[in-house]
């Protein structure tokens, strides 16, 4: 194995880490902080992907000269659309199920099927083609043997931006304070005057919006179709559960570990065996630490 391959493998590990982290952030908030098992999370990502597709179509029709910058616009739009959808969903549907986690799981699973069929009816059963902007096509080649795909660099950058923004939001703003307060002690937050229902809606919408961003970015790597969400949902849950459901730091570190493991195992074994080995590791880890890597020590 040459040095070039080692460098590219290392980069793959980092890239996979950011892909997994971006996937899991939204779910970490919805599942981790709110305790809502949202099986439709993948479909929210697909919604982000379809928003990106629609944005590219609109740019192609109305402003073909600006097609180069459609992607950043699409990411923002995808966040907006899924945020709004998440907000409406929480108000009309999820909030009635907070006390019934198992029912939530079934209900959101049903919702995911409905959304899939809706995508199929609206956009057709085949994948749609989302074009890569010219500046993201191809690879950066620092030396002859090394090529770093630009689309992956873009996703790394995006994850850093989203991660920092989320950190600022949760730890540096009033809204973040309210969210954390409600998650730690709902009754007490209500008693001191926090509008907990509103905080719930905003938190859920935020998680949905993050799913939209992830879905939008992944159009550069993978397919955009009615079942796109299903390609991500399992990995997303594994990352969140493995990291410990109540900790964003846990989500990041579990994404990092799984990303590195997957990248190197895939190189050493076949893709299927790599996946099986990772699942085995996760099962063993959860056996010894049932609450995940970073469990919050709180009194229940």
């Amino acid at each position, binding site marked *: *194995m*040459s040095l070039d*391959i080692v460098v*590219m*493998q290392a980069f*793959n590990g980092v*890239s*996979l880490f950011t*892909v997994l982290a971006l996937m899991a952030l939204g779910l970490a908030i919805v599942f981790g902080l709110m305790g809502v098992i949202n099986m439709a999370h993948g479909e929210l990502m697909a919604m982000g992907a379809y928003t990106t597709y629609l944005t590219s179509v609109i740019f192609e029709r109305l402003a073909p000269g600006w097609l180069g910058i459609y992607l950043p616009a699409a990411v923002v739009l995808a966040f907006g659309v899924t945020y709004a959808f998440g907000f409406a969903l929480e108000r009309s549907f999820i909030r009635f199920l907070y006390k019934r986690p198992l029912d939530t799981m079934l209900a959101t699973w049903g919702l995911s099927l409905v959304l899939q*069929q809706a995508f*199929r009816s609206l956009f057709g*059963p*085949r*994948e*749609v*083609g*989302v*074009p*890569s902007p010219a500046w993201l*096509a*191809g*690879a950066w*080649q620092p030396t002859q043997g090394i*090529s770093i*795909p*630009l*689309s*992956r660099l873009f996703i790394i950058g995006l994850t850093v931006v989203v991660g920092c923004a989320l950190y600022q939001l949760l730890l540096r703003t009033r809204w973040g304070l309210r969210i954390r307060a409600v998650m730690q002690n709902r009754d007490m937050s209500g008693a001191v005057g926090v509008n907990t229902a509103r905080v719930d809606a905003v938190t859920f919408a935020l998680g949905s919006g993050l799913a939209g961003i992830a879905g939008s970015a*992944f159009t*550069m*790597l*993978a*397919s*955009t*179709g*009615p*079942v*796109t969400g*299903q*390609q*991500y949902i399992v990995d997303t849950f594994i990352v969140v559960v493995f990291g410990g459901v109540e900790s964003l730091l846990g989500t990041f570190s579990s994404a990092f570990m799984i990303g590195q493991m*997957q*990248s*190197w195992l*895939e*190189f050493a074994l*076949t*893709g*299927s065996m*790599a*996946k099986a080995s990772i699942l085995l590791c996760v099962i063993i880890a959860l056996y010894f630490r049932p609450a995940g890597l970073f469990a919050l020590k709180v009194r229940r």
Partner: protein
Amino acid sequence: MKLSRRQFLKGSAAVASVATGPFVWPRGASAQGTVKVGILHSLTGTIAIAEASVVDAEKLAIEEINASGGVMGRKIETIVEDGASDWPTFAEKARKLLDRDKVAAIMGCYTSASRKATLPVVERSKGLLYYPTYYEGLEMSPNIMYTAQEATQSVIAAVNWLAQNKGKSFYLIGSDYIWPRTTNKIAKPTVEKAGGKVLGEDYIPLGNVEFASVINKIKAQKPEVILSTVVGGSNVAFYKQLQAAGLNGKNQALLALAVSEEEASGIGVENLEGFLSCMGYFQSLKGAANDKFVKAFKAKYGANRVVGDTLECGYISVYLWKMAAEKAKSFELPAVVAASAELEIDAPEGKVKFHKANHHLWKHARIGAFKKDGQIEMVYESPLIEPNPFPKI
């Protein structure tokens, strides 16, 4: 034994249906002047991506047949059922089509899993199923007619052509299920027989969208030829990430056994251009029968629609059934199957005919390269290849 009410109801319903079953219409001869044909594909669920359009092609064939007077003077009455990408549902709907609707034939199934689930039902109810998808072989039911390629009909020709024209070192990559694994089992000795070498073999889980490490492995091995049996949405990720890693149709030979014109727009033609595909049929084939088929399909479903191998196989399935029934002058199963032996059809893919015994078609293997517009330009056409669903490896 204590019976719950539900079990009792189920039991009595089963008894009732068995009791009344034989006294209803004999199969096929339903209401006066029509004959029933079932279409059984997934219109919903994950596999709808590939199957929904096959229904369109089959409906088109039925419409054409009805417009030209039907089968032996009877109009075809179509009953469409949704298999919903769920294998037990396929079996249940097949039972409904055969036992309740008494269809003369079913056009249906896409995945091998759905066919395997439907097979016992069709055999028990003495039904007839036309299966329009290329698959791994290793099956020959007396009640199923296989109208697409089995594995040896594409992979052997493809490997031999690649070894002669593109290079002798191969890398095999596929999705992890029965079709790619069987195909590669046939591919490996074929590569060696052609004087080539298999540098690596890799399987990724179905639906996987991460190919970076696999692509690195390929880059480390530097194979002259990649033989891909990746299926479904994974292909979009595979080609996009190949392109991003600097491998494209100009500097790397890659032949896919499961990528047709229909997948092109989802993958993005800029990612596909120059890569190879091996199928039994391409939309761009020359010939009057194909011109007529493509024109009729576009007229009915829209000018931007694309046809591919499975659609064409679904389309000719209906015609093959019609021709066999007319040759046999009967809709009964043994007669139709017997009449199918060596039955020849002037199909959009050219003249093809059923094998005298094994229910599969003699077919051409065709290799083509993707062009800028997402169509495939044929570069090689094999002579008709004898179907051999149980190859000795």
